[in-house]
């Protein structure tokens, strides 16, 4: 993408956000939509997040044990390494990347389909701020529910590491539990949740942008959906780097 085009998209994105962050016409309808989106975005993603968290936790544990085969490294280091990997990066970032794929494509295709079938025009003609009506509830819902999803992912990651790590015979229950308690820094959880709040904004905002400005027919809506996922991931990784630099360095 050339710089002029990038600047154009950044400018148009912020103009859209200025439309999005206005006072909703009817607060009751707005909150109804927020709760609907919390269910669709958050609760609806718990299944996939749970499965991935359990197995990723297990894989991290087994890989750590494989890497720490030296007699000089205590076995509890496996639990410690798994804990830090899960809290610092796996739960907030990898789960958000997965949600960017699942939620981002769903948001972009829903809004894109509304655009090409003139439903957004219908809202605008009625005098409804379509950007505010459609996008703000998704952003509020994501920013609200993503931290809960990530905390659940952290828990299930540890649980998967513990149960499957012990079952695989790479770590004992005592060593694993001792490892995850050893030198625990609550700030790491705070850092992970701060990142998640940003990701909770980035994913619905970037995806909605691509859906809102979709043109053409079903083919273009599909392309907008793909672009939404790709750009959500790029922006998410960029902010992951910036926030890590700001909060941990």
């Amino acid at each position, binding site marked *: 993408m050339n710089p002029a085009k990038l600047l154009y998209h950044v400018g148009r994105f912020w103009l859209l956000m200025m439309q999005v962050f206005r006072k909703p*016409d*009817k607060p009751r*309808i707005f909150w109804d939509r927020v709760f609907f989106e919390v269910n669709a975005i958050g609760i609806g993603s718990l299944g996939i997040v749970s499965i991935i968290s359990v197995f990723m936790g297990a894989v991290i544990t087994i890989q750590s044990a494989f890497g720490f085969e030296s007699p000089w490294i205590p076995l509890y280091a496996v639990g410690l390494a798994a804990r830090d990997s899960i809290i610092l990066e796996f739960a907030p970032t990898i789960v958000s990347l997965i949600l960017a794929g699942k939620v981002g494509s769903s948001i972009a295709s829903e809004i894109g*389909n*509304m655009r090409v*079938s*003139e*439903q957004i*025009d*219908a809202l*605008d*003609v*009625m*005098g*409804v701020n379509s950007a505010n009506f459609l996008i703000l509830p998704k952003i509020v819902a994501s920013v609200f529910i993503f931290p809960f999803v990530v905390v659940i992912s952290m828990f299930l990651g540890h649980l998967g590491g513990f149960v499957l790590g012990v079952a695989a015979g790479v770590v004992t229950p005592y060593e694993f539990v001792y490892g995850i308690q050893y030198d625990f820094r609550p700030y790491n959880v705070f850092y992970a949740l701060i990142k998640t709040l940003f990701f909770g904004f980035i994913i619905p905002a970037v995806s909605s942008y691509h859906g809102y400005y979709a043109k053409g027919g079903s083919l273009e809506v599909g392309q907008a959906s793909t672009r939404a996922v790709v750009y959500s991931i790029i922006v998410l990784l960029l902010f992951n780097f910036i926030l890590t630099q700001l909060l941990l360095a």
Partner: protein
Amino acid sequence: MIEVKNINKAFGEKHVLRDFSFVFERGKANLIIGESGTGKSVLTKCMVGLIAPESGEVLYDGVDFIKADYNAQKEIRRNIGMLFQGGALFDSMSVEDNVKFALSMFTNMGEKEKQERAMFCLERVNLPHASKLYPAELSGGMKKRVAIARAIAVKPKYLFCDEPNSGLDPKTSILIDELIKEITEEYNMTTIVITHDMNSVLEIGDKIAFLHKGVKAWEGTRYEILKTTTKEVSDFVYATKFLQAFRSRLENE
């Protein structure tokens, strides 16, 4: 009444509308007709603010919509009902919720009151039995009728219909035309219909503007259009062999 003055719109080098002026009268079905690609839909989109024209004025009962600020535009829009070509019903809502939508957004009506109004509007378009269905379960004609019910739910002053007969069989087209005509008179609305269907023109065209290559080539009534000598209009009106034969017979008599 809506008065459009000297509207110009271009997309890059392509001029779609040139100095279009017209008065859309209250209580009448005002038709904008013309061949495909002559700027009819663009004109409507300029009038309702979906596209910004390069220059010109759109006066809703004297208030210039284009120069109005965000809140004033919002106020005018709340008096606009629009029937889109494909219906543009909200997929995720039932028929009843579609009709109730504007009532929920812009009025303080209670649930019972909204439901009664929605049912009244659905009965008006002969679809009371479809209230619990979803748009995906409706036929093309039913979608248009629900869209009309949704448009009239808030008792708008202005009704825009973008090709209300496209994709419909002749019988359903006549039903839709009659419905538009009846509700225009009933609610004393300023109705703007975009069409290239000659049946509609002859059925409901109280006042007609003919667009040709973005320019208003002719204006008149449905009675006058049959006798017009303007070549572009005449070619449009008598496009079929059947109507050409009809014209020859008229001339001979």
